[in-house]
């Protein structure tokens, strides 16, 4: 196990030399207090692609995702060692304001979380936050269209965002996230609270969105990763040091990861031998 772990980190880097990298995440160590949650993982994120993070529970895939827009800074004991570059700038640089980072790198959460405001105000929230001066109605419509929700809500924009169904709420959250046209969209298990039909709609939406955005998605569902991700990163848990530390086992084109994985651990995982 340990041997696999060590080789993985070394091998993962050279196999991933991409040209059009928007973000480059080089984790050395991520701590929660004294607990080492993730170590030695290099994850380049390519423009207009969807990268899927898969792996067993507790492998740190959400932790890594939330490190990409500094959401983890809200947890006081969180500590990040390494580098995450966004268009060449390290977002963990002391001069960088995490609030600004999050305006460029949007996020969709596991649980749909609209604000208790009207549908319109939910979508307009980020625009108002950024003191958007243009045609608000137009941008709201565009965002709702982008999230494939416009036709369902166009006659009730004044209704509460919380009055929608779970799947609609999640698409509203996506609309809210894309209204400000962020560069990168992080999605933390966006479909885990949704039924299969709503899940399919969100997946179709992701495939449309990657035309304009770069998406990183954490998913528990391997089929979902196969359906939507261009690149898949498989993360494992290293228990050799007596605690549970996540690390990147292998990363590559989705088809290769699922059909011809290089690592034994990946092979076992994608075959469903453990989860």
């Amino acid at each position, binding site marked *: 196990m340990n041997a696999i772990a060590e080789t993985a980190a070394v091998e993962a880097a050279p196999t991933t030399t991409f040209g059009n990298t928007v973000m480059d995440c080089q984790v050395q160590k991520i701590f929660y207090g004294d607990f080492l949650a993730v170590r030695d993982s290099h994850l380049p994120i390519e423009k207009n692609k969807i990268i899927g993070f898969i792996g067993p529970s507790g492998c740190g895939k959400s932790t890594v995702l939330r490190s990409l827009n500094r959401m983890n800074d809200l947890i006081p004991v969180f500590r990040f060692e390494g580098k995450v570059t966004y268009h060449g700038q390290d977002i963990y640089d002391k001069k960088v304001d995490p*609030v*600004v*980072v*999050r*305006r460029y790198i949007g996020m969709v*959460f596991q649980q749909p979380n609209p*604000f*208790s405001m009207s549908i319109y105000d939910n979508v307009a929230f980020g625009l108002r936050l950024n003191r958007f001066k243009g045609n608000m109605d137009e941008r709201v419509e565009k965002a709702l269209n982008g999230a494939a929700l416009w036709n369902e809500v166009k006659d009730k924009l004044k209704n509460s965002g919380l009055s929608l169904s779970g799947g609609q709420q999640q698409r509203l959250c996506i609309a*809210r996230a894309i209204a400000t046209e962020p560069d990168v969209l992080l999605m933390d298990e966006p479909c885990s609270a949704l039924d299969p039909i709503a899940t399919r709609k969100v997946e179709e939406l992701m495939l449309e969105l990657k035309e304009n955005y770069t998406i990183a998605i954490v998913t528990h569902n391997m089929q979902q990763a196969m359906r939507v991700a261009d690149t898949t990163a498989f993360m494992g848990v290293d228990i050799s040091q007596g605690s549970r530390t996540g690390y990147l086992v292998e990363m590559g084109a989705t088809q290769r990861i699922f059909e011809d994985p290089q690592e034994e651990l990946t092979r076992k995982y994608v075959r469903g031998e453990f989860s």
Partner: protein
Amino acid sequence: MSASDLTSESPSFDITSASHQLHRAPFEGRALKSGFLTGLTWIMAVLASVPLFSVIYMLLIEGGSRLDWEAITALPPSAFEMGGGFGNAIIGTLIMVGIATLISVPIGLFAAIYLAILDPDSKLAQTARFLAKVLTGFPSILAGVFVYAAMVVTMKSYSALAGGVALAVLMLPTIVLAAEQAMTTVPKKMKDAAFGMGCTRAQVIWQVVLPTGMPGILTGVMLAVAGAAGESAPLLFTALFSNYFLSSLTEPTASLSILIFNFSGMPYDNQIELAWAASLVLVLIVLVLNITARFIGRQKF
């Protein structure tokens, strides 16, 4: 295998295979006990509302007959005078409760923001929370004595200002605790969403937490206002009373509660009738404020 086979083969259940009895058995022990307890809760609920309804009934009968334009606009009558009213007391109560609200709402709201969001687990927060809880049970007369020493003695006069501060001391803990409660119940996922959009902490608080918690905050403020409007003990030491309309915030000021206290003990029918009417007005003021707050603060979404 038929249904009868199933029942006959499960002897651990005493479902007699022949009868399949589904009817109620109203005189069985459990049913009687349940019926008795349900009846008891009903009786207790009715008993609990007897004082409230009898007070409201008496107020409407006794106070309603004297409630007219003169009563709510005129100055209080002197001993043997007929007529008169308590216009100055209504204004005094409204002004002093207003002052108290202006003082306690900003302090209470900011304190609650600190307790609920900024640093809920710090030593300071834990101490402040504990003290606020202690202060909710603070004898109101002591608030009056405290402000008497702090303001009346130093300013050398009873005043509306001192009355307002005394009421503010009493309103503060209610507002802090209710607002904290309202803000902590705003779901964490909503705050996460706001942070994820690139909100600063101040923006999360002003644009998401406060609007979402507003109904609860307003309920707390209204409870505090209602309580303060009815207080008399703290005003005895701070605002005292006046038979004239308020002309300055730094002079003794009339209030409904003190007027009720003064007039209800007098041996004159006119004054006693006015005390009833003033009581009714006091209840109505609280009621109107309550309804207004509910209307403004109702959960819109």
